[in-house]
């Protein structure tokens, strides 16, 4: 059986034995082993990390093939956490991998958080992930945030004493998972993701189907892997102590032509979007709500018409 030093020999060109030992001894909990969760897990295993707790109830489907690291013809239908766990053990036979191929409660996840050094909530269900982020902060553990969509993504480390994920993404601070889940699935909240078209390069027809809940989010492999590698790098920075991680209130903002570090409430398009979501949410709680909904529906029609026209122009039609 190959020795740890042989497997990760080239890392010692960059990391001191002490730094590599810190990477080796650290543990991560990954909730959701799909596009970003699976890729970050494999990258950390190849970086020399040895302790993994993987949680995912989902199985590989054919539409995962365009970006998910463990999805192949022979893994279709298999549980994602189990496949990623097996892959990690084939990289480093000394790795300690605990796999939970089922849907866990937040109480059980909170117990698992206490056993690791870093938490990575990467579930498709954003409301579920937000509660895991909150639990990680409450229990004093840093967590990794990676949010990709089309050709856009956000990446940061949320420190226990730093601003929460809601501040970066402009999600209203609702108490329970059920409230968050209900709010995130309302059409008026989904309209708040309209920047997916101009910034994340979503096609308008696809975005319209996404709003109508007939299509899943649009993802392409290079962006999913880019934000995953940046996320894995932030974890390595954090646990090795070699570099200073980018942590909240700072965060990486990725588009196809630029990768920048933004700051919450700093001068950026995202600040505008976040405040727009916050203000709109407050206004929707007032008696003005029916009027606002009518205005929003009108805006939606104009938005779709404008971007359909632009897309036709782009394709020369």
């Amino acid at each position, binding site marked *: 059986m190959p020795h740890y030093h042989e497997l*990760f020999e080239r890392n010692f060109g960059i990391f001191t034995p002490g730094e590599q030992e810190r990477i080796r001894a650290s543990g991560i909990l990954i909730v959701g082993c799909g596009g970003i969760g699976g890729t970050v897990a494999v990258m950390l295993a190849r970086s020399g990390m040895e302790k993994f707790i993987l949680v995912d109830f989902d199985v590989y489907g*054919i539409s995962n093939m365009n970006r998910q690291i463990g999805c192949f013809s022979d893994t279709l239908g298999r549980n994602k956490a189990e496949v990623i766990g097996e892959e990690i053990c084939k990289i480093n036979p000394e790795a300690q991998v605990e796999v939970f191929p089922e849907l866990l409660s937040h109480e059980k996840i909170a117990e698992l958080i206490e056993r690791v050094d870093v938490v990575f909530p990467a579930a498709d269900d954003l409301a579920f992930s937000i509660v895991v982020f909150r639990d990680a902060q409450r229990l004093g553990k840093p967590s990794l945030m990676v949010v990709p969509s089309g050709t856009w993504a956000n990446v940061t480390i949320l420190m226990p004493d730093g601003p929460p994920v809601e501040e970066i993404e402009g999600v209203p601070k609702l108490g329970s998972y059920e409230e968050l889940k209900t709010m995130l699935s309302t059409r008026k909240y989904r309209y708040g993701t309209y920047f997916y078209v101009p910034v994340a390069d979503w096609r308008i027809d696809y975005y319209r189907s996404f709003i109508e809940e007939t299509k899943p*989010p649009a993802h392409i492999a290079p962006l999913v892997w880019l934000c*995953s590698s940046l996320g894995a790098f932030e974890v390595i*920075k*954090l646990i090795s102590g070699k570099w200073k991680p980018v942590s909240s209130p700072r965060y990486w903002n990725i588009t196809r032509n630029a990768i920048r570090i933004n700051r919450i409430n700093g001068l950026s398009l995202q600040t505008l979007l976040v405040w727009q979501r916050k203000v709109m949410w407050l206004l929707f709680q007032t008696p003005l709500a029916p009027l606002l909904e009518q205005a929003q529906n009108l805006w939606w029609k104009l938005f779709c018409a404008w971007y359909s026209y632009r897309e036709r122009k782009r394709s020369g039609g």
Partner: protein
Amino acid sequence: MNYHDLFERNYGVFTEEEQDRIRRTRILIVGDSGTGETLSVLLARCGFERFTLFGERTYTKGDMNRQIGCFLDTIGTPKIVQMEKMIRSINPAAEVSGSQHLPGEAQLDALVQDADLVIPAVEDLSYSILIFRCAKKHAKPALLCMPSGSMGWVSVFTKDTPTIEDVFGIPPLSYKGLRRMMHTREYRCAQYTFITSGDWRVPWFWDYFLDKRPLALICTTEWMAVSLAALEALKVATHTWNPTLAPKCWYLRRGRVSRSHFSLFVKYHRKLGWLIFGQGVGKAMHKLTHLFWGSFFRILRSWQTRKEQKSPDQP
């Protein structure tokens, strides 16, 4: 499994026509370094379907820290065989050809002519330059994806952009001349940016300098560079967005990444160094330059040791 089902989510970003262009693009990857093999798998996940792959190595234990096809049960397997297996397992209709031997100059000419995007992925920079020259000759876009330690560059070279020699300040020598030059200690000294920007540890660099160690590479930087390269490949194939053309590049440095330009300082000091020390009388002065480099690396080593001593004991 039909193509549309496999790449359904891509259609949220690309039109049918753009995705069809991706599908029809012929990718030529020469070399089986970590970037080449990871990039081939990532491009297969983007929907590229026509691959010509060349590489001559088998997986070793030292590849485990970053190479996508390297597992305990594939050590000793030719990389090309594993890449082909992975690509076909992603898309059974993919057309994969190539060989376990690197092509010679004449064969390279024909291969480049037949390709739509050329990706040199060999660790031997002189051979990479040969491929870039060939791509320029045939007006084919070529993709640079070059990580080292925590630094890296990604850029697209076309017939209208500066050449790779221009942006890195490499002298205009023949392949044999370049190969000779790149094995000299003087050339390796000029790679000191591996330490200052790529965070190589000085003892490792010293062994690399003496040909006792390979390049220091880590997974996160390499895969970040590969992801950016795949994004550029999509830009080239779809014609929808403007690629990052040289002298612009994606520049990775110490865990940071930005869209920037190749360093003019590095370019000109290498050019000047070659002008003064590269030929004729200059060669006689090499012993003097060794004194300079000796002191330079001693300073770097003491700076790095101080920094390492300051680093925290606990994460």
